[in-house]
């Protein structure tokens, strides 16, 4: 039921993005810098997460004009964010021809119970997850790529680490269980048995698993990839740093050479100041973005 021809095309593009860096951009100039630095895709949005955090208000899908300009300017895939549950923003983005839609907790949710039925769309979706149950529910709805949420706009890697470790640990656990135990786990995870059984048999998600939320340095990118992420999304980390171009190039290099400390050292040299981070533990509960999504 899940692994259709359509699913192969959608996850296929995610396969092509592996080992790469998907960069948040808010205008054409940033998109050009990202492409030139070696980004494998760009994510068009109105404000980067750290500004959404600072300025507040309702965060919506980006302006059509800007997304279209970015599509016309760069040759790499263009993604854009839609609000959780806002299937009409998603329809508009699909009509606009974006290559991937991120149903994202970074924007203000439009529905507090339901996510988009993503299987109804021809365009592929990526969704955030903090644990295996959340990831599998999103895949059940049709997501063709999962990214761990981290805490967007924090410049702090601690939540991204927590989420990738949680998902990997929960997947390992499934691989040692018997059939009857998987039924029970399916109930605990709040995820369909068919997907729980698939993970138990394969020890990984049935879609590519990327990481997001708090990546600010080349070493951050390498860390989440060591922990099992197959590519990284960088939001505020690049265009809120002192020298975005150099930092973008350095994180691209780190995503390829995450297993090579000498190359990582080269990537980490001569960077300007990183974005200023936030101690996530001191953030009030209602300011967390990661708790959005159900």
């Amino acid at each position, binding site marked *: 039921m899940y692994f259709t*021809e359509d699913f192969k095309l959608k996850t296929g593009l995610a396969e092509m993005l*592996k080992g790469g860096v998907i960069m948040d951009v808010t205008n054409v100039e940033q998109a050009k810098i990202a492409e030139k630095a070696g980004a*494998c895709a760009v994510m068009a949005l109105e404000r980067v997460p750290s500004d959404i955090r600072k300025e507040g208000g309702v965060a919506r899908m980006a302006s059509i004009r800007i997304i279209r300009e970015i599509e016309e300017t760069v040759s790499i895939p263009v993604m854009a964010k839609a609000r959780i549950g806002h299937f009409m923003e998603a329809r508009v983005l699909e009509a606009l021809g*974006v290559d991937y839609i991120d149903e994202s907790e970074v924007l203000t949710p439009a529905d507090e119970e339901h996510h988009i039925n993503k299987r109804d769309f021809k365009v592929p979706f990526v969704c955030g997850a903090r644990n295996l149950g959340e990831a599998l529910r999103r895949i059940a709805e049709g997501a063709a790529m999962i990214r761990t949420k981290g805490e967007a706009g924090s410049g702090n890697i601690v939540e991204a680490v927590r989420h990738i470790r949680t998902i990997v640990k929960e997947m390992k656990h499934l691989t040692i269980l018997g059939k009857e135990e998987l039924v029970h786990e399916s109930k605990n995870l709040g995820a369909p048995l068919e997907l729980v059984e698939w993970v138990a048999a394969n020890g990984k998600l049935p879609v590519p698993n990327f990481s997001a939320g708090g990546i600010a340095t080349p070493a951050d990118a390498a860390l989440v990839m060591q922990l099992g992420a197959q590519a990284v999304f960088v939001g505020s980390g690049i265009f809120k740093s002192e020298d975005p171009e150099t930092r973008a190039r350095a994180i691209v290099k780190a995503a390829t050479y995450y297993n090579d400390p000498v190359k990582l050292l080269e990537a980490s040299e001569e960077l300007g100041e990183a974005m200023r981070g936030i101690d996530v533990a001191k953030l009030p509960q209602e300011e967390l973005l990661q708790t959005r999504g159900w």
Partner: protein
Amino acid sequence: MNRQKTVGVLALQGDFEKHRKALERAGARALEVRTKDQLAQCDGLIIPGGESTTMLKLLDLEGLTGAVREFGAAKPIYGTCAGAILLAHQVTNPPQASLDLMDISVERNAYGRQIDSRIAKVPVKDGGEFEAVFIRAPIIRKVGEGVNVLASYAGDPVWVEEGRHMVTTFHPELTDDDRVHRKFIAKL
């Protein structure tokens, strides 16, 4: 009995993992290649799908552009999708640099955006057909005289070889069919 051949998969960015698995299914030893030393251990090389602009940047950054070109002067290279773009003599939409190892002209993203990606049944010259997965695929617009077209889709060549090198604009590594990989291994 010859020793098992080692096929490198350029692992700078893209779906190198799927190629590695396809090679292993087809009976070769697969090695992820990110450095010149790793490249030197290979009998052949696969340049996978992914973003050709990203790969070009990383090839340049690590001084691998010349090394891969030299490798191609003596040993077989197989490129899928982005790999086909890198091997081409000429690239359009937009024009960009390439390794220039095959006499073909390639137009990037020629079918359109991701919503235009498709799966098609493609007949093969030697008989039978392939499940060809095209993802934001390029189209081979021109082939030189020495180029042998092995399969076409909608009038355009999608699998071609020239001497020791070979490209597909589709992704056999995303299916369980390893005939294309076997054909490449036979060239080593």
